[in-house]
């Protein structure tokens, strides 16, 4: 059984069936690139995986454990617990503007401490720590901050931990958002067009971070229009059109598209790339 298994995922908005039965598998440590023209349902797929919308049909399994099944009714708390298997990096970063980069990264983990402490220090828990609850919290908080620092170092933002999002470039914001998504150690990290709002230089620095994460063995799903990145870094590429996976394969598939849809999409992307390259030069 594969590390991540998505089975027959379906989602409709009213009469509009956006996902028409998506099946996907991904091995641990692999990178999946999802490509396809706008409106094909790529964002909806990632949103279903992260429970930002709930799929109408289908199931999601990570490491042999069912995280979601449309047939099951979950409580809010269960969904909150299960979604931690996944992280999501948005195109528009969505950093918290009122906190500095460091706090952006450790906030969510700190907010989980309350519930954890309650459980840990409950009467009759055999693993109840010997220290006082307040000391435990202090220690954990300090550790979370240190972990956040390490994550910022990993994305090359050590010198910016005190900066607020409004003081950073788009590329720096996106790298901070990646560090934040890593803070809860998700099993699978998803990216929805992480570089679409960035110029080529900043795109490069973000893609480099993603390459580093691949080298670390992170399992990732990336919706992207960066065809050369997909070719070089993805272990698996799927082409999505009209809510279905039309083609699925490795980088070779890009050289040798089997369907008219993918062929047209690739030549369109190539055209866009040369156009941006040209305007880039003329500047």
């Amino acid at each position, binding site marked *: 059984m594969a590390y991540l298994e998505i089975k027959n995922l379906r989602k409709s908005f009213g009469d509009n069936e956006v996902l028409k039965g998506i099946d996907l598998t991904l091995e641990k440590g692999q990178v999946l690139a999802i490509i396809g023209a706008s409106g094909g349902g790529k964002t909806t797929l990632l949103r279903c995986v992260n429970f930002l919308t709930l799929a109408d049909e289908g199931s999601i399994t990570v490491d042999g454990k069912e995280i979601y099944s449309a047939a099951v009714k979950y409580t809010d708390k269960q969904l909150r617990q299960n*979604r931690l298997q996944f992280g*999501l990096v*948005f195109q528009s970063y969505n950093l918290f503007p*009122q906190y500095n980069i460091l706090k952006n990264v450790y906030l*969510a983990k700190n907010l*989980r401490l309350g519930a954890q402490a309650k459980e840990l220090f409950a009467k009759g828990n055999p693993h109840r720590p010997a220290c006082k609850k307040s000391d435990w919290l202090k220690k954990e908080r300090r550790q979370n901050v240190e972990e956040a620092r390490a994550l910022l170092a990993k994305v090359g933002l050590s010198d910016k931990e005190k900066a607020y999002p409004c003081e950073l470039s788009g590329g720096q914001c996106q790298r901070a958002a990646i560090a*934040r*998504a890593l*803070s809860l150690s998700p099993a699978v990290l998803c990216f929805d067009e992480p570089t679409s709002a960035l110029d080529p230089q900043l795109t490069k620095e973000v893609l480099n971070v993603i390459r580093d994460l691949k080298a670390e063995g992170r399992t990732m799903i990336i919706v992207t229009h960066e065809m050369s990145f997909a070719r070089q870094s993805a272990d698996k590429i799927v082409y999505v059109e009209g809510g279905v996976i039309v083609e699925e394969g490795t980088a070779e598939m890009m050289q040798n598209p089997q369907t008219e849809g993918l062929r047209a999409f690739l030549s369109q992307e190539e055209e866009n790339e040369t156009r941006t390259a040209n305007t880039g030069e003329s500047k």
Partner: protein
Amino acid sequence: MNFSQVTLQLLQGFGVTCLLFILTLVFSLPLGLLVCAGSRTRFKPLRYLTRAFVWVIRGTPLMLQLFVVFYVPGMVFDAPIFANLSNGRFVAALIAFVINYACYFSEIYRGGIESVSVGQYEASAVLGMSKWQTFLHVVLPQVIKRIVPPIGNEIITLVKDTSLARVIAVFDIIMVAENILSLHALIWPLFYAGVFFLLFNGLVTMLLRFAERKLDYYKI
């Protein structure tokens, strides 16, 4: 009457004005949150009822509302409730002000909450935060930053609006000055009363500016 006698009398009235101002804020700022929750609830009857109420309060003169609060309970119970209490007039004015300002504040809160982008909620959700944590740690700080300027404007208006309490004979600074006018035929104390408002608003403006500067360390 000489200047210091007038000043002393006006100060007494000004005490009432200040008390009305402060108590109105103390009650209407939190009550506004409640009204705001009502106007955003998923329970439709309550939502429409709240919005209709806010519409009426914001759409009619505060002076009229003062009369309504002061006289209508007496008409309903067939006894002048507020007029019989020792500080009933003040209480009636306070109730009218609190209701009126809570409605204005609720709309400011609503605008502030609705201006926080969906992306902020989604980022919080993906990070496993509960609804309450999201509101408290992500949404609320941004709302506060956004609403301080418009709330400030309302507060400055409130300082001046307190003088309306005089229409139901609350013994505020304007009423005191008018009394001096009719008893001693002196007009200048009335104008002098304006200086009190001016100075008070100067102080309020300074405090608000301080708050805005405190919140200026980031942009949304």
